[in-house]
């Protein structure tokens, strides 16, 4: 049995927990991100590394120094975003510089020259361990099914509270219900039970009466980690909600997996999971950005155009400082905003971002949106 951990990203740990539990390994939940995590990461990461790398590195150092972890697992990648190289850097820094001893598993896709089928096969054998093939596949499918259902339901709830918090004055009631539901979903081991918890939480959150009017609608686009991990963006979404802005996110963990893992699956599996293709992204990002630039760069542009067409008031673009794909997107969003007459606020985050400056910018943006509404009326 292995004791595994993964860096924290929003609520994704719920899904990983389901998979590893099903395989009979212990999943050590990563500690929540705090100021200390970021300080640790900043200390040991390369100076210009992206902010998500610094946070996740700090999170791994915290987890390893508890001594409860013996395996770290990370997805690799084939670029051109820097994310694909995180694994190599984790290993170099944690093993060579800090001298931690652990088993590191890097899931690289079997694409030359970054990985090959043999590496993938070795990892599969490692996970199979003593189990028989039949048992292994059964457990794996069961684990993935449960993880997928849990992640979907958690995300549905998140999407719900991102809307609901804007309509009520006392948001703590909404959040209490939400946190309770998340806790229960994390512990549940049964598909139907997950559904039941979700339904109950949804009904009770929706039952809270709205006591606020004149709510703006804003879309969120940008880099996935900084959006999903509230500590890294200083809880921007909550700050917006508190000021009467309803939010719709465009990136989610499950969507990320659908777009980045599903296309690479072999023939029958791809059809089984229902791969739909990425046509809408390609369609909407034209003529502004005509090529995939890595990460969520293209999605940021496409979703901004979609939000405009759906009649949103504006878009907030969240990116970590010096993120390569999002910097390209940011340059292009300037043109999108100009040509479509659409307000876009780009917020970049790193370890030096202060809350006061952020709030000022958000409030100015909201004032602008309200003014535009009044002018249009």
């Amino acid at each position, binding site marked *: 049995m292995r004791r595994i951990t993964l860096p924290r990203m929003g609520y994704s740990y719920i899904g990983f927990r389901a998979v590893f539990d099903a395989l009979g390994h212990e999943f050590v939940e990563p500690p929540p991100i705090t100021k200390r995590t970021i300080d640790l990461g900043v200390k040991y990461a*390369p*100076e*210009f*590394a*992206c902010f998500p790398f610094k946070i996740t590195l700090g999170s791994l150092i915290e987890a390893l120094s508890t001594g409860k972890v013996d395996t770290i697992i990370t997805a*690799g990648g*084939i*670029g*051109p*975003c*820097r994310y*694909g*190289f995180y694994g*190599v*850097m984790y290993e*170099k820094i944690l093993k*060579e*510089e800090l001298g931690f001893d652990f088993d590191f598993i890097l899931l*690289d896709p079997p*694409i*030359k*020259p*970054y*990985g090959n089928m043999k590496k993938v096969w070795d990892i599969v054998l490692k996970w199979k361990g003593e189990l028989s093939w039949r048992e292994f596949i059964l457990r794996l499918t069961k684990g993935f099914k449960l993880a997928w259902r849990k992640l979907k339901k958690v995300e549905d709830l998140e999407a719900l509270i991102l809307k609901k918090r804007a309509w009520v004055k006392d948001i703590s009631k909404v959040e209490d219900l939400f946190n309770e539901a998340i806790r229960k979903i994390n512990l549940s081991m049964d598909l139907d039970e997950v559904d039941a918890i979700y339904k109950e939480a949804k009904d009770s959150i929706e039952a809270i009466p709205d006591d606020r009017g004149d709510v703006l609608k804003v879309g969120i686009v940008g880099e996935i980690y900084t959006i999903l991990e509230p500590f890294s963006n200083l809880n921007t979404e909550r700050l917006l909600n508190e000021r009467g802005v309803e939010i719709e996110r465009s990136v989610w963990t499950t969507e990320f997996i659908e777009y980045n893992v599903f296309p690479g699956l072999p023939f029958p599996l791809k059809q089984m999971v229902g791969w739909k293709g990425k046509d809408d992204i390609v369609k909407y990002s034209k*003529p*502004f*950005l*005509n*090529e*995939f*630039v*890595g*990460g969520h*760069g293209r999605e940021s542009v496409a979703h901004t155009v979609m939000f405009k067409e759906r009649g949103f008031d504006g878009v907030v673009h969240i990116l970590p*400082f*010096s*993120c*390569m*794909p999002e*910097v*390209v*997107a*940011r*340059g*292009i969003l*300037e*043109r999108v905003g100009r040509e479509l007459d659409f307000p876009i606020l*780009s917020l*970049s985050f790193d370890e030096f971002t202060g809350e006061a400056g952020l709030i000022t910018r958000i409030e100015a943006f909201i004032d602008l949106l309200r003014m535009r509404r009044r002018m249009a009326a």
Partner: protein
Amino acid sequence: MKFGIPRGLYYEPLLTEWKVFLEDLGHSVEISPPTNKLILDEGVKEGVNEACISLKLSIGHAMYLKDRVDCIFAPRLMNMDKYKRITLCPKFRGLPDLFRVFIPNVLSLNAYLGSFERRLSFYSKVGRELRVGFLRVLRAYRRARLASKKVKELQRDGFLPDEARAWVLGGSEPSFTLKRKDEALPIIAVVGYPYIIYDDYVSHSLLKKLVNMGFNVVTPEMMDDKEIEEALRYLWKPLFWSQSNKVVGAAFKLLRKPEIDGMIHVSSFSCGTDAWVGSLIELEAKKFEKPLMRIVVDEHTAEAGLVTRLEAFTDLVRWRKGRAVI
């Protein structure tokens, strides 16, 4: 038609090839001048916030050409390596679209340039766009390749890219070269992207300064491609960007050579790829106990500060070599 090719980013090593190619097809070509204050200011004003100085400069160069030419020739660089999956930095991939934010007339095609077939297919696509036959494209391609190979060879001998290009295209022999004149002088390796180390304005003529201070200089462009490729084996997964692979490979190889006395890594502020490149080189330099200095340039870098650092570093290198002149 009059085409303009902006300098900056990875267009730098391809300028000769494209200029000869387009001129052979009967168009006139203007290459933007070497970076100057005006171009930098324009780029910083219009360019993307948070982007590296090279991207801002690239936009500055394109803005310079905007009103002087009919069309900006800005292919989307997708691949320069034999492996199709090794690509270039996202900023290169988004560059034509970033130009389009300010400039309506941009001719852009996806450029896969890693092998003969891919290059040929790219050039024939350009030919189709310009309505010329395949045979003419083939002829122009041959000439372009020959010229660009000559420039590359000259660069290997230590000539600077701009001067080498002028020489190949009919100018006179340049006076400045990095070629070793005195073997006894200490050797400093300068690694970094060609669009930074050869840009005299951005790097404050770092190469020339080193030569004038009495050093032999080696750059990645002066090395054999095979050597660089070999050295990449020490990395158990190559980076995703061919330009970075070249720098890392060259640095790894040079650090293993006993005759190299020190290394300077020149990188630009907020360059995404250099976050990994820099720390990989740093870890490797520690292993081989070679002095390493990392210079980060941006639009605010002052020459005096750079010179001070350079002098301190060169003193250290000389001292280690045992012939201090202080």
